[in-house]
């Protein structure tokens, strides 16, 4: 760990006056990702800008029915919020499946969107890693990759995006509100995280100095919702495979469906192929399994993670089944 300068800001314009944030400087919210990586010497900000006093702690319903969440709302608060519980249960379940109570109390909505991969080689400054040090190579490709991704990988990086919350948000549909030195803009949640491609060091569409101020959830989709997280132990572990499913029925047929995946992909993953395979079809186990297969057509297995293709499909089929049961209830 290296020493850094700490500055607290009270207002958003003050926060976004730091043009070197994300490039030599860093915002800090809950600190559960940042400080971990600073202590490991993986992130080495010279200056840390504390944003926790900014007025971004509210959850409010907009006139158009969407739900606007401040970037500093904690994971616990968001998961337990009555509107989230009622209208976005898949998000609440995703949040509560993540980390531990203590971490969720500290973790912020914005910080969760920005959390870094748990690839062990990324976290070890003495090992080559293209994401940490572009051009040094990917240690995971021929190393221990049981926890790595099978979807969205490239020959330069196969690390997963570890968030549960983001998977719930992709399923629910959301927009990110960003405030930067050059003003405000909005980005569709699904377009925000980037595939590793040739540049695994670029993880998201955030310009220097930009701050996530809000996440706005689409108007509620209704239907039956479920988040299923599969892992080794029963709690306090990142997903090996997870699925957020929202199913609306018209009689026995699936009228609308959203499927998002975690633990298997390099970014919070919308499984559009699965959705297309199921939409308009009878809500049967067979069709759930077909949809699951469709989601992994392009998957690539590495030395220790081929099982994730099977496990990911199982997560989809089971999540769809349980979401459908709720849609029927």
């Amino acid at each position, binding site marked *: 760990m290296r020493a850094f300068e700490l500055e607290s800001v009270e207002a958003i314009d003050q926060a976004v006056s730091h043009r070197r944030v994300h490039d030599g400087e860093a915002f800090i919210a809950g600190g559960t990702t940042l400080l971990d990586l600073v202590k490991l010497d993986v992130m080495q900000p010279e200056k840390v800008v504390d944003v926790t006093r900014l007025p971004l702690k509210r959850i409010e319903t907009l006139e158009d029915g969407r739900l606007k969440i401040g970037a500093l709302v904690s994971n616990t608060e968001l998961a337990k919020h009555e509107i989230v519980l009622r209208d976005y249960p898949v998000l609440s379940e995703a949040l509560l499946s993540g980390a531990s109570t203590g971490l969720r109390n500290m973790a912020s909505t914005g910080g969760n969107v920005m959390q870094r991969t748990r690839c062990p080689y990324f976290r*070890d400054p003495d090992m080559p890693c293209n994401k940490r040090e572009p051009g040094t190579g990917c240690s995971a490709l021929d190393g221990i990759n*049981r926890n790595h991704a099978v979807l969205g990988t490239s020959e330069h990086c196969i690390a997963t995006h570890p968030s549960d919350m983001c998977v719930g948000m992709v399923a629910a549909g959301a927009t990110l509100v960003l405030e930067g030195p050059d003003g405000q803009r909005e980005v569709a949640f699904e377009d925000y995280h980037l595939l590793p491609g040739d540049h695994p060091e670029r993880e998201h569409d955030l310009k220097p100095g930009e701050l996530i101020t809000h996440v706005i959830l689409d108007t509620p989709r209704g239907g039956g919702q479920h988040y299923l997280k*599969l892992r080794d132990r*029963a709690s306090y572990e990142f997903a090996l495979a997870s699925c957020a499913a929202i199913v609306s029925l018209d009689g026995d047929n699936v009228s609308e469906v959203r499927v998002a995946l975690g633990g298997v992909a390099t970014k919070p993953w919308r499984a559009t192929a699965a959705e297309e395979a199921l939409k308009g079809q009878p809500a049967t186990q067979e069709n759930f399994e077909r949809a699951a297969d469709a989601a992994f057509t392009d998957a690539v297995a590495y030395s220790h993670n081929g099982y994730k*293709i*099977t*496990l990911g499909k199982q997560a989809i089929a089971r999540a769809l089944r349980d979401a459908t049961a709720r849609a029927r209830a």
Partner: protein
Amino acid sequence: MSDSIIGAGPKRIDGQRKVTGEAPYAADHHPDNMAYGYGVFSTIASGTITGLDLEAARQSPGVIDIFHHNHFPELHRTPSSMAQGNKVEETRLPFEDNRVHYEGQFVALVVADTFDNARAAARKVGVSYQRDDAIANLDQGVKAHGTKPGSGNHERGDAEGNFDGAAHSIDVTYTTPVETHNPMEMHASVASWEGDRLSIFESSQGVVQQRGALSKIFGIPPSHIRVESPFIGSGFGSKLWMWPHAVAASVAARETGRPVQLVVPRPQMFTTTGHRPETRQRMRLATDDNGRLVSLRHESINTTSFTDQYVETCGSVTQSLYSCPNLTVSHETTRVNRGTPTSMRAPGAAPGLFALESAIDEMALAAGVDPLEFRLNNYADRDESQDLDFSSNHIREATEKAAEKFGWHDRNPEVGSMRDGHEIVGYGMAACNWEAIKRECEARVSLRADGTAYVTCATQDIGTGTYTIIAQTVSDITGLGLEKITVRLGDTSYPNGPISGGSWTTATTLPAVAAATREAIKELKGYATSEKGDFADVDNDSDSLVFENGQLTHDGQGVNYVDVLKGQKLASADGHAHTQGADDRYSYRSFGAHFVEVRWDPGISNLRVSRVVSAIDVGRVINSLTARNQVEGAIVMGLGMAHFEATDYDARNGRPVNNNYAEYVVPVHADQPPEVDVILLDYPDLEFNEFGARGIGEIGITGMAAAVANAVYHATGKRIRDLPIFKEKLMENIPAVQSA
């Protein structure tokens, strides 16, 4: 001895201090003017340090000194003898030379005025290496340089000759990965010197051995060294023997002239403080037509370090658990670039019984016999390896009782036949077993004029309840309430006590404490019968002079012991005792059996242990609460061993990659089986000691992993011979690797 308090379940007497944070752990000590050490650790697993760039670190704020192989005083190695009381596991001293034997080895130590400054400066130390190819795992070790014979071997009859022609036989190999102890509290030392006297607070399971080792290393008498470890945040064996950090901290304190605190960071808890080594165990078993064992071979190889020979005695239980005239147990080691392994809860037996009890299951199936039946048919009635009777053995009763409670007889033996909704249920069982050991011990007890008792012994309470059972012992003999009894442990200024390991603390310390208590009473009687005493005309050792409930009575006349002391203006009556280790009239062992129900949901590849019933025969139970807690904890640790635990070393360079609490997976609360039923048989083993207690810390983990694996086989038809039982080992239709 009254039965009231021995065997009862009083809560831990140190519990309140622990939960309120008042109990001081090693790193809670901050002597005046203390400086902080932070290590620089090797980033290669094998090679030579060719250069150190210290400039930037020296310029870093607060830095006092930086130690390394060219700047470290000459010390001596300890002969590392447990009998002499100076054992360590890693005999090489830190900074002894420029060689690197494992990743995460100390290569420098920065001492600074604050922890943060020390850590920041440590990161600025540049180290250059000449890197050699690392031997990263057991297979690579065997390939590179074969094996070396280990200890604890045993041979009787002709196992080989009776294998080939036998009616049924199996020849299977099991492997277990490295497990890391990962106690919650990190290893820590706080060392200070006054002249040539060293005082050190340590998170230690063995203060006396550490004092002995430091004495040899620094060449100063043991009486000049004080090691204190009154509380420890568990150790599971990793804190039995001193590790290099304690030597480094002591040197740093001496050279800088300031007390120095050194805490081992979590990642290096995976490298420089021991681990359970990797094992490969070949099991060859054969039976006759009736399913009686006629040949049994257990051949084990474990990894050790390049600096030391550590033998994981996987076959220790195999020698005596089953009756078999033709038996071979052998242990070999192979060197790899890892730190030196050490004992981890039930060393030898935990990995050994995974192999043995899985193999017994496989053997029973091959012979067409129910695994429970098979065991009852083959359990040994005497210790055939030593040709001795067991002092007390109720394994049949334990097995039958647990089977009954579990409902084994409702088991449909057909694989995958028991279903509950979309889950497949599997039943498995395994025997458990651990040796009973009793060591030499000293203790001191004072009956004080303020109506309290004060007990000291240089053993430790590692969270198991030693403070409490020692107080129970004194209470039992004196009649004083537990709140009147102060117990002090974990300090070498007290009479020599044993390491807290091997499940021998109870059997070792209680007899010493009881003897010291009786000595104190004798001294008190001496005062009472002296000229000035209340019973001046009574004979000192007359049987009619009894001490009961804090009173000395004779002929119906009673005097409180406090008045005896006060009458003569005395502070206390004191007793000291020195008791001996166990004799060799019998084979002393503990026994038991685990029954496990697993649920496998093939739809989502989810495996859970849903029910455990264990019956344990450990002699007399001293404290029913802490005893049960030990077995339940060991069961959970056994589940971790079965399901999750493995330190992953990168085969390319020997680095452990999951060196943190998030990725090294141990069971959490949500993994606890909904039902854990522990039956403690509670038959006193009076051949072993006056309390009849054998010790209970380790037996519960033995056999657990096999019981789970056997249940998994029953549910899925998959025989998992390589721990841990990760879900992908049970899954079907896993796509092939598509990339290099």
